[in-house]
């Protein structure tokens, strides 16, 4: 029984990490209809910046804030300079550009900070809560991660479903021409979308780095699982991303604990296929397809 509880707690804490990445991907998708592989490269860079700031200043929260601001700026710059040129073309071109940007960012990070992974501080203690004399597999830092993820998911839901700004962003993504005619500043919405997505991504990076270390390639497996979680929950639904992340985390944790680590990636595949066969738009998708 304790094994099941430990694995469940582990699943929730790792799932929250995947959900954080998934939220950034959902945000980009809703704002621009692009699958952004570069997200992971961008928040890897902002986390490195945070690491340098923390080493230089000694303050974690200063580094935290700097990373978030850098995220906003980096996202806006990438959109203005790069993605703007491919947004109107074939969607695959934007995917390839994003892929190229990811590779470039990882290589640049290796050149600037080196390929050796380094330690990154957590926001709060990682010592598990003491319940009945034993420490459980859930720490104050895990609580922080889960709360942040839930908070961001709720804020995004409110933004997109309940605010005028969110409506403008969705309109700009779905029908840029018509939105322009109705007075929406489409290009500004795209820039805002990228900036916000990079902001959420930076947050994700800060939450991920303590448990997988910080290095140019250290986040790669998390990115893949984050993308899987986003697809699982439905790319249009922030709450779906959160639920998808936790579902994925739980599944992988149970499989690793009861069957062995070698089946983990296969388990991710099975979960995704099972969900997508039943709901091809992800768990939370509500659109019915037109089947002829």
């Amino acid at each position: 029984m304790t094994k099941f509880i430990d694995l469940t707690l582990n699943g929730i804490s790792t799932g929250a990490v995947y959900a954080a990445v998934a939220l950034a991907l959902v945000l980009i998708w809703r704002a621009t209809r692009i699958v952004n592989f570069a997200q992971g490269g961008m928040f890897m860079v902002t986390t490195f910046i945070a690491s340098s700031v923390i080493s230089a200043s000694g303050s974690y929260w200063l580094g935290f804030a700097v990373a978030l601001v850098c995220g906003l700026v980096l996202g806006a710059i990438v959109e203005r300079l790069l993605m703007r040129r491919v947004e109107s073309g074939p969607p695959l071109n934007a995917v390839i550009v994003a892929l190229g940007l990811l590779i470039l960012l990882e290589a640049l990070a290796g050149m600037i900070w080196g390929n050796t992974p380094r330690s990154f501080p957590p926001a709060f203690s990682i010592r598990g809560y003491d319940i009945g004399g034993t420490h459980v597999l859930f720490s104050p830092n895990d609580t922080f991660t889960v709360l942040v993820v839930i908070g961001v998911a709720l804020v995004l839901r409110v933004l997109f479903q309940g605010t005028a700004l969110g409506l403008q962003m969705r309109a700009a993504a779905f029908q840029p021409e018509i939105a322009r005619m109705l007075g929406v500043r489409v290009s500004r919405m795209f820039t805002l979308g990228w900036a916000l997505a990079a902001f959420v991504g930076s947050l994700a990076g800060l939450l991920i780095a303590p448990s997988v270390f910080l290095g140019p390639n250290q986040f790669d497996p998390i990115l893949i699982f984050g993308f899987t979680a986003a697809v699982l929950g439905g790319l249009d639904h922030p709450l779906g991303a959160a639920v998808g992340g936790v579902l994925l985390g739980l599944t992988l944790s149970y499989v690793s604990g009861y069957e062995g680590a070698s089946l983990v990636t296969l388990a991710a595949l099975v979960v995704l296929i099972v969900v997508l066969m039943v709901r091809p738009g992800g768990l939370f998708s509500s659109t019915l397809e037109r089947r002829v």
Partner: protein
Amino acid sequence: MRATSHKARAVGALCALVVALAAAGCGSSSSSSAPGVSSTSITFGTHQPLTGPAAPGYSEIAAASQAFFSYLDAQGGIYGRKVNLIIKNDEYNPTQTVNVTHQLVLSENVFGIFEGLGTPTHTKVVGFLNSEKVPDMFVASGCACWDNGSAQPYTFGWQPNYTIEGKILGQYIKQHFAGKKVGVFYQDDDFGTGGLTGIRYEVPASQIVSTQPYQPGVTNVAPQITALKSAGAEVLVDFTVPIYTALGQLTSFTLGYKPQLVVSNVGIDPTTVGGLLKTFSKGKAGTELIEGAVTDGYLPSSTETSNPWIALFKKVHNSYDSSAPFDGNVEYGMANAYTLAQALQLAGKNPTRQGLVNAVNEKGSKLSGPGLVPFRYSSTVHGGYSGVELGQIRNGKIVLFGGPLVTEPTAGSPITPYTGTQPAPPASGVSVP
């Protein structure tokens, strides 16, 4: 009309590709008599993971070897020849390993391959190198696969076989932690399973309560560590690479789980592991979490500055490779380079590929240098170092104790102390028997 131009375009593209290919390959001359060697230089090639998830730490090794060769070259090299090392990045991808090895042998015409890194990578080129009769010197891996002088006469191992290490660590556990429950956390490949085999040869089966393999690439190891804690393991054996030693320690810290650690020399370098755990150790060296861990070594500890070999390597490091921190990986690269230089010295003034191989077969077991134990080399055995000395992390440094022990990687063979003394490094060049 359109179809013809489509055909023309396709053929045109093909021709362009072929021309580019030929142009890229132009300028490579091949000398069949003694490839890769001239009166002024001898050239080796190596494949290394310089980037990618396997790069951490390992990317320093070849640069350190190159630095040591530069040091020798400054003194005139071996028989007046500079030793060159061409380093190619294979990103730990076996397809890339095959490609760059083909390039090194067929295009760059190297004399031999040196220090090829990795088991899943290097196993893919062993057949090619042996059929082409290219010396495959001192593979950077402790797999038993290199130890086959009869079937693979051109391939030589260097570091101690993982099973040898497992046996010696296992014997220590049997003698000092009798009756305590033992758990093993190991990498799910030759490294981990080889070490586990050695542990099982020595530690009684009733003592081993849980063995948990992990997959490199899956960073969540909490299920495995939790299982080890639940099984009640009081001694935790880690056959892990540094990142996974550190990941295991993070989960142990969360759980408040503090077993006695016994860690393979592959995964214990305090600089690397400490760097990964620094922020959890209140900013100090970062080695608090592994303090007291039992480990082993076949070279003097890289922090033992009073050892003359470490002093020599540090001098070389400062002159030729100062960008990397001086740690176990750098020491590995230099010590392996010293062994290759010794082998070249033994091969004589006019080295041939077969001559180099024969030299190691005949005299390799008598070589002495920075290693604490002798080599296992003969025409049938190509194993490398024959044992290790036990060590412990004290104040963040590896301190060796108890004297070197040697054994064979088989079930019943005894573990015996080695009483030879480590020679001093020569004032210049290399010294051979």
